[in-house]
């Protein structure tokens, strides 16, 4: 997966860093599961599936199936946490596996 852009988001909550990553492809179920290997994955089936990955002490990530953006809240921002997450996102192979339809 390629990261197309990184934006800082501002909210009224003090002391947190919020990033929005725009990715090269919309989120699919297999990508959610990939992200979930880095923390605790929760999936909620609304009109569009909402997913959230929590890595305690590092970040809380959320996204919506079909969207290309990830919203990540770093409770105490450390560059190493962000670098690790970005590497993990980029490690996702967007090519379909055998037997999967693209």
């Amino acid at each position, binding site marked *: 997966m390629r990261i197309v852009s990184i934006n800082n988001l501002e909210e009224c*909550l003090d002391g947190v860093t919020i990033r929005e990553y725009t990715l090269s492809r919309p989120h699919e179920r297999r990508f959610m599961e990939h992200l979930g290997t880095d923390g605790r994955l*929760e999936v909620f089936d*609304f*009109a*569009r599936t*909402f997913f*959230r990955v929590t890595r305690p002490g590092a970040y809380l990530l*959320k996204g*919506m199936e079909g969207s290309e953006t990830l919203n990540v809240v770093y409770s105490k921002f450390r560059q190493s946490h962000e670098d690790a997450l970005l590497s993990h996102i980029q490690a996702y192979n967007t090519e379909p596996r055998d037997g999967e339809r693209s």
Partner: protein
Amino acid sequence: MIYLNHAATSWPKAPRVTEAMARSMEAPPVEAYRGSGDGVDAFASCRKRLARMTGASDPARVIFTSGATESLNLAIGGLELAGKRVIVTMAEHNSLLRPLWRLADRHRTRVTVLPVDEKGRLDPEDLRTALEDDAALVCLTHAGNVTGAVQPVEECYALCEKHGAPLLIDAAQSAGHIDLDLSGMPNSLWIFTGHKGLGGPPGTGGIVLGEAVEPVAVKVGGSGIRSLSREMPDFLPLRLEAGTPNAPGIAGLDAALAEFEDRSVTERADHGRKLVAILEDRLDGLEGCRIVSAPATENPCGIFGFVLSGWSPRDIGFILAESRGIQARHGLHCAPLIHEALKTSPEGTVRFSVGPQTSEDDVRLAANAVLEIARSGRGS
């Protein structure tokens, strides 16, 4: 998209608003206060409409600014509060609190913060007690932007009057939703913004000054007349309106105010209450849902706030927007103190706020979306 963020800014604006702004922009510029090139003196018209709406004694006491924040800075700065005491409530917005904190830090102004109850309501008895010590100003948000609770302004004014303290009424949320007659409140300042309940464009707002209140000019500069003088002209509104005025904005606000001839403040308030009642009906009693806003019957501004156990307001806002296209607002809403009273610090609340175009179906869909989230299981 379902737009439920009218307490932040109204949308869409009425066609006549954008048309009036476009006409103002296209007309050749002429001298300020002498009408625009299309032959309409929007400044005079807008001041008259606002004076009629508020019962102000003289349209010249309607001062235009860029919005409630500038109005509050000019009013608070202009009342010369160094070393004096100011009374506020926990329901105030940062646009009022921050100018006061600055005065407290730099000019020894003492700020007394009165409590509010779990719905954001002030008990006038607390104000009565607080006024036993000298106060140079009392500041009261007319309707809270987090809970929609309406403060008893008339009763509070009577208390202030007894002690000779001016009352600053922050009507940023209430203007356009609650009628208030200022004619019996000469020692008051009514602060408004144009882009919320009044339906005007951003960048507009002002102060309606009671007859007994004369703040000094904090902002000075060009006035277009009496240029040889070192001082601003000594008459209102010009004394407090330095700089080139926002002609397209005021033209838009004037047009927005004309909308009230078709649909009155009372009708809008009834609409707000009705839609909040629908939300209450659907969500009150839902397991894990705590409604923090004022009851529908006391909620003319149409503000509905809630928290959902196990879900952060941020996640709810995200899901509503991304999954259902519902634009709500989450967080502290720039009113940090009230969340202590509501016990919703530090993450705040989710807020639905309705406007004249919001339909019953819109709020039913929003309520259903909240039900869906609540029933999906616990969040974090």
